C-alpha cells in the first residue's frame, strides 16, 4: 500500500457476534484520506460508519485488513504503542462531550497535554489559544455545568485541537446540537483541517454538514456507496458567535 496518504485503510472487515449470531459490519472496505482535508462519512445508523472511525483511529482492531496512519501500520502496534500513537498524533471529538465536571474549560483542554509531558505553563498557553480558536476565549473558567451544549462541544474540540494532532476523529459531533451550533462546530473542524493541516474524519448522519466538507463519503452496509471530492478551497469563516460578540 502506498504510504503517501495521511490515513489509509485497505480491505478492512469487522464482524460482531452476539451469541451465535454474527453481524458483519464492515466488509472489505478500503479508503485513503489526505492531510488538510475534512472528510465527512455519511450513512444511516448501523451502516458501520462508527466502526470505521474506531478502526481508523486505532481504538478497535479489524478482523481483516490493514490501517496505515502517518506511515505506520496500526495492526503491528502493541496496546501501549497504540496508546502512545494516539497520545501524540490523534484527537477525538465524540457525540457525548465527556468533560470532567470538576474542571474548568481551560483545565479540560490542559489535561491531555499533561499526559503528553508538556509543562503547565506551555499547556496553559496552548489551551487558551485553542479555546480562542473555537471562540471560547471569554469562557475559559467555566465548568461544564455552566456551559451550553454547543459550548461544551467546542471545549471538546479545543481539547482535541490543543494536542496539535495530525489526525482528528469526530463522531456525530453535531447530533446533540441545534443547527446554528452544529454549523459552528463543523466550521471549526474544517478550519482545523485547513489552518493546521490535519486530516479530519467526521462521521455523521446529518446531510446538512456536506456543504462544509471537502469530501463526502457515503457508506451503507459496510461498503462505500459514493466518494465525492468537492472543490471548496475557500477558508471557512472563523468562529464568532452572535451571543459572544455582545
Amino acid at each position: 500500500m502506498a504510504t503517501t496518504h495521511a490515513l489509509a485503510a485497505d480491505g478492512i472487515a469487522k464482524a460482531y457476534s452476539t451469541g451465535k449470531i454474527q453481524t458483519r459490519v464492515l466488509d472489505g472496505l478500503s479508503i485513503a484520506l489526505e492531510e488538510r482535508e475534512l472528510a465527512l462519512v455519511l450513512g444511516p445508523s448501523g451502516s458501520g460508519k462508527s466502526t470505521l472511525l474506531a478502526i481508523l483511529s486505532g481504538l478497535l482492531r479489524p478482523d481483516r485488513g490493514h490501517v496505515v496512519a502517518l506511515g505506520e501500520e496500526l495492526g503491528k502496534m502493541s496496546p501501549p504503542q497504540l496508546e502512545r500513537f494516539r497520545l501524540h498524533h490523534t484527537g477525538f471529538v465524540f457525540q457525548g462531550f465527556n468533560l470532567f465536571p470538576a474542571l474548568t474549560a481551560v483545565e479540560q483542554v490542559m489535561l491531555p497535554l499533561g499526559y503528553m509531558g508538556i509543562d503547565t505553563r506551555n499547556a496553559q498557553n496552548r489551551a487558551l489559544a485553542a479555546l480562542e480558536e473555537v471562540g471560547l476565549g471569554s469562557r475559559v473558567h467555566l465548568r461544564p455545568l455552566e456551559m451550553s451544549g454547543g459550548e461544551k462541544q467546542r471545549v471538546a474540540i479545543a481539547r482535541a485541537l490543543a494536542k496539535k494532532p495530525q489526525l482528528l476523529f469526530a463522531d456525530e459531533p453535531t447530533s446533540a446540537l441545534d443547527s446554528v451550533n452544529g454549523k459552528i462546530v463543523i466550521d471549526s473542524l474544517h478550519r482545523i483541517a485547513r489552518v493546521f493541516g490535519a486530516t479530519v474524519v467526521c462521521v455523521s448522519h446529518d446531510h446538512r454538514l456536506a456543504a462544509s466538507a471537502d469530501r463526502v463519503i457515503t457508506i451503507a452496509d459496510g461498503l462505500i456507496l459514493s466518494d465525492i471530492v468537492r472543490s471548496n478551497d475557500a477558508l471557512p469563516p472563523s468562529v464568532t458567535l452572535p451571543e459572544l460578540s455582545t
Partner: protein
Amino acid sequence: MVALARKTLFYEWRKFLPAALAVAFSGLLLLMQAALMFGIFDSASVYVNTSTADLWAGYPGTQTIELGRPIPRDTEMSLRMDPDVVRVEPFHWIDGDWRGPADRGSVSVFISGIDASADGLMFAQAIPAEMRRKLFEPDSVIVDQADLPKLGLAIGGSAILNGHRVKIVAACSGLRALGGVNIVTSLATARRLNSDSTDRDKVAYYVVKLRPGANPDQVRDRIEKAWPGRRFTVWTKAEFAHTAATYWMFETGAGLGFVFFTFVVFIVGTVITSQTLVAAVASHVREYAMLNALGAGRGALRRVVLEQALWVGGIGVIVGAIVSALLMLLARSQSVPTAFDATAASACVVLVLTIALVSGVMAVRALSHLEPANLLR
C-alpha cells in the same frame, strides 16, 4: 499537570464523603478499642506502675498480681543482703468482701496492705505522703474516687470489710482496678482483715528500692544467683508490668478479641470505602475512556483513582483523629481507663490508610472494562 484526582474529589465531595467517613469511623473504632484495651491492661499493672519500687519479689511463676501466693518471710532478708538494695517493704494483697449500705449488697474488692510511711514505695505516685499517713489510724482505708459510687459511700463513710468495720479516710485517683475495687490499707489493718489465719503474717510480695544508678537487671540476676534454693522470684518493674499485660492479652482471650475486632473493622471499612470509590469511578467511566482515547495510559488513570483513595484516606484520618481526641477527653473525664501511645496511634493510621489503599485497588478494577471504542455509538 491538572490535578484531576484532587479537583474531582473536592468538586464532588458529596460522592466521596461516605468513603471518607467510613475511613474515619474505621480509624475511630480501631483507636478507641486500642485505647480501651491498653487502658484495661494498664489497670492490670496499676500496682506496678503507680509504685516507685525497682524490683518485685513474689511466688515463682506468678503471672499477675491477683494470682500471688504467700512467700516466706525470710525473703525480706535475702533481698536486704544485696548491697544495692536501700529499701524493702512488704506488700500485702488479699481478696475482700465489702458490705456497705444495706441496699448495695456485697462488692468483691482487692485489699492492698501497704507501708503507710511517707517514703513508702507502694502507690507512691497515686497516694501522696499526707494522704497515706491517714492509714496509720487503725481500720482506715483509701479508695479511688471513681469507685465511691460503686461502694455507695462518700469519704468518712464506713462499711464491713471481711467482717471488720473500716472507714474511708480519703479518696485518691489512678487506682481503678480491673473487675473490682482496690481498697488500700496499712499493713497492720490488712493483717487483721486477712481471713486466712494460717498465712496471716505472710505476704505475697516484697517491693524493693535500689540505690540510685543501680541497674535493676544486674541486681535481679545477682539476688537470684545468691539464693539458689529460694522460693521466690525477682522481677524488675518493667518485667512485672509486662508480665501482667501479657497475661491479660494472651491468657484471658482479650487479645484474641482485639485481633478479631480489628479484622472485622478492616473488612467493613474496606467494603464501604471501596463500594463508594467504585461508584465514584464508574460515574466517570466515559470521561476516563475519553482520556484513554486521547492517549492517557491506563496506568496513569489507575493512579488517578489511587490518588483519590489516598486523599479519602488522609481526610478520613484527620476527621477520625479529631473525633477520637474528643472521645478520649470525654473518657478521661469519666475516669474510663484509656491509654495509647505514638506506636498505637501510628499503627491505627497505617491500618486506616491501608483500608483506603486496598479500597482504591478494588476501585481501579472498575477501570478494567474501559473501552474507548464504546464511546463511538
